[in-house]
């Protein structure tokens, strides 16, 4: 009897300790959030730009700005903004496009477009030759569109060989990996195909049962039996290609995903006859030719027209460059309040100014000064925005200059002679795989430009790559890259300045993890102990 009572006392004691801990945690959390004047806001949409948005929202947490963002695809972002379930949307394409015969209606709530970042739709691939990964593939526009429409079925196709005189291409099947959800990346890529390679694209569309002319579409039509794979989201397609065993796959995804997963991207032939990579400077060069809607009264103010980009005669231009947009509300309705407006405006002011510095490291390209200015003007249209005069010179945006020219584009390095059409290709890899191509001779890698620097990529300099025991650290244009020697998976090691709290080795988060571990152990251990105890007391 006395034993049973003691057990009960222990149980009650244990419970009270748990309750007390929980109460302490809740009070700490609530007092922390009460200290700031911002309210949490939420957004959804583009996974093309989500690597940049995610980085920015992590950065603004230190100011107490809480931004929730779901990278569910541009189509979903536009629809959710229209339905009023999110405070802002992110999308590659505006409202009003005609997709598969259906024109998307504009939302009834007041809205405005605001460019958030530029970038290149890259073609990330997983290809091996003789047990080594190919990292310096080049593709012309014609070959590219035939790859994604099932015309070219094997990697050793003569068309691909013509683009790559220096490569021994394997007899692998081509497996195009496309998006299964409604996606702005798909829209950008199919728009380019419909403009430049319309017959190939229309033939494919017809075989998929769509009406021709097909035009741009957010949902890539998949013909069963052609060996296409469809995955949801940019993370899904990039994650699929990045699985070591999935050799022969190629997908379209923003350049940042290729850098993140450590896989190479194809250099695409531009109108000047050079194969280029979607680096920040090449994208900046190409987008000088983008036509921006300059009519502030138009509902599609600031949206882009990319025909000039596709045919840019500059040898440095990357043809599939584009801007990504945020859709922000201009009226108080659908649960959008002026408090939310103030938070959204503060967030937008951050990413339009300081945030652009990180675009290049992440695999994007910073916005030029005219779009930053126009974006900041759009911010003022958000209800509740606290009008703050931002000194645009302090943004340290690498494209800015006193004379008004785009510094990043002006100082972009000319392509190497080996990137010219018909010449045996360069041996240096792309993305974060620089200096590791089978056709290469072990050439070293480029040196890193300073923050906000000129963006010039040096070559040569063997020995910049240091080989460690388990990991290889390569210094390249995107900062340090750490590669695991066993898996070959590379990760970009970016140094991004943030205000760190006082260095403490054991903080609240560590306690929290410990508590979680304890709770997990308790969840496993308590039920059997209770049952055994109950059975024993019952027996006695």
């Amino acid at each position, binding site marked *: 009897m006395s034993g049973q009572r003691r057990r009960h006392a222990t149980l009650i004691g244990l419970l009270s300790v748990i309750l007390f801990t929980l109460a302490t945690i809740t009070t700490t959390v609530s007092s922390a959030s009460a200290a700031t004047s911002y309210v949490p806001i939420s957004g959804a949409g583009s996974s093309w730009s989500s690597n940049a948005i995610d980085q920015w929202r992590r950065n603004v947490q230190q100011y107490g700005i809480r931004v929730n963002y779901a990278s569910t695809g541009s189509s979903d972002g536009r629809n959710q903004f229209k339905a009023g379930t999110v405070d802002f949307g992110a999308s590659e394409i505006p409202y009003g496009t005609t997709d598969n015969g259906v024109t998307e209606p504009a939302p009834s709530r007041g809205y405005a477009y605001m460019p958030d970042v530029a970038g290149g739709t890259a073609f990330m691939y997983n290809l091996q030759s003789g047990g080594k990964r190919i990292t310096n593939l080049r593709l012309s526009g014609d070959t590219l569109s035939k790859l994604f429409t099932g015309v070219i079925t094997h990697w050793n196709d003569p068309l691909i060989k013509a683009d790559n005189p220096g490569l021994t291409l394997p007899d692998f099947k081509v497996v195009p990996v496309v998006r299964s*959800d*409604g996606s702005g990346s798909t829209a950008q890529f199919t728009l380019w195909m419909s403009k430049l390679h319309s017959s190939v694209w229309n033939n494919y569309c017809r075989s998929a049962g769509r009406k021709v002319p097909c035009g741009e579409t957010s949902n890539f039509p998949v013909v069963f039996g052609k060996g296409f*794979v469809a995955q949801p989201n940019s993370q899904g397609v990039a994650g699929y290609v990045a*699985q070591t065993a999935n050799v022969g796959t190629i997908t379209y995804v923003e350049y940042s995903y290729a850098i993140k997963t450590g896989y190479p991207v194809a250099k695409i032939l531009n109108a000047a006859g050079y194969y280029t990579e979607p680096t920040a400077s090449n994208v900046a060069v190409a987008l000088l030719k983008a036509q921006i809607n300059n009519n502030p009264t138009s509902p599609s103010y600031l949206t882009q027209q990319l025909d000039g980009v596709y045919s840019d005669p500059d040898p440095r231009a990357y043809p599939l460059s584009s801007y990504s947009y945020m859709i922000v509300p201009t009226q108080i309705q659908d649960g959008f309040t002026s408090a939310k407006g103030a938070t959204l405006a503060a967030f937008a002011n951050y990413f339009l100014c300081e945030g652009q510095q990180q675009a290049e490291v992440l695999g994007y390209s910073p916005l030029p000064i005219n779009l930053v200015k126009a974006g900041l003007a759009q911010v003022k249209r958000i209800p509740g925005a606290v009008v703050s005069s931002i000194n645009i010179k302090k943004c340290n945006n690498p494209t800015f200059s006193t004379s008004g020219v785009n510094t990043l584009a002006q100082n972009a390095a000319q392509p190497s002679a080996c990137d010219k059409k018909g010449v045996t290709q360069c041996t240096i890899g792309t993305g974060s795989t620089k200096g590791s191509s089978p056709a290469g001779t072990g050439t070293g890698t480029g040196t890193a430009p300073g923050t906000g620097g000129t963006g010039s990529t040096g070559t040569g300099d063997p020995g910049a790559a240091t080989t460690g025991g388990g990991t290889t650290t390569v210094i390249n244009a995107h900062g340090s890259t750490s590669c695991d020697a066993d898996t070959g998976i590379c990760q970009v090691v970016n140094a991004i300045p943030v205000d760190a709290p006082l260095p403490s080795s054991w903080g609240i988060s560590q306690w929290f993890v410990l508590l979680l571990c304890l709770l997990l152990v308790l969840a496993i251990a308590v039920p059997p102990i209770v049952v055994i105890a109950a059975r024993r007391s019952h027996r006695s």
Partner: protein
Amino acid sequence: MTVDIPRKLVLRRDPVDRTFRGVARGGGIAVLTIMLLVGVFLAFRASQALSSDGVKFLTVQDWDPDSGKFGIAAVLVGTVLIALVAIVIAFPLATGTALYITEYAPRQIRQWLISLVDLMAAIPSVVYGLWGFFFLQGNITPISRWISQNFGWIPIFSVTGVDPNDPLPTSTLYTSSTFIAGIVVAFMITPIITAIMREVFAQAPLGEREGALALGSTQWGMIRSVVLPFGRGGMIGGTMLGLGRALGETIAVYMIISPVFVIQTHILQNGASSVSSLIALRYGEASPFGLSALMAAGLTLFVMTLVINFAASSIVARSRSGASS
């Protein structure tokens, strides 16, 4: 002569009893009402798509509501195939686990095993999906390839486009398949099947067990002759409840499969489909009419799951173990 008039019986329940009856009755009615409302809501929202599509809704394989070509023939077959693969894997796994826990496991670790299996049910399905996509997919393809190469003459195991003499076989043909999605779903439904089987096995009457052992049967003989026949209803019912869950499993399937809109019966081949993952994939971007079509697909799944669950509960109730529980 006086006629005996029976005394009028007045049932007087005390307040505690009345409160309990009220709460229990209210709960029961609420559950039924919610079910009914879900069904009515789905039917109402689906009516626009169903009335425009008619019977074609059940026979068309494409899914393109905005151009008027849509039907659930392909996705429904895909859903059933994924669920069947899951059941084929989960049933033996759950039976073995439940038998081990109730019959063979030492007393001291029995409760621990029960908690572990219950904990398996507590893992969020998105975690199963991540695991399936990033880990299982890369490691299961050699098995898929082996099955298709050796049993490819059975239609469901054949994979089109495979050249056995290809020196550079790619694994992509075997990824994102019904088979892989089915394995992941199998792990998700194993705990619930195990829990139900464990309950009924534990109820097998002690007298009959001892009788079997006294007649000289081994432990396995006793299980075969007493425990399994006694628990048959529970085994079937539990499996069908698991099947109901497998049919509706969404996010893990969504992450793994590469959706195709044709009837695809080659379970090892890339390309699969399911109703719930189709809804998850398309509801965000659908036009009002597209949403109505998705609701119609959801209604079909709802009705199908309902039928299966009713069948399961009636089987459990009619069995010996179910009747006593």
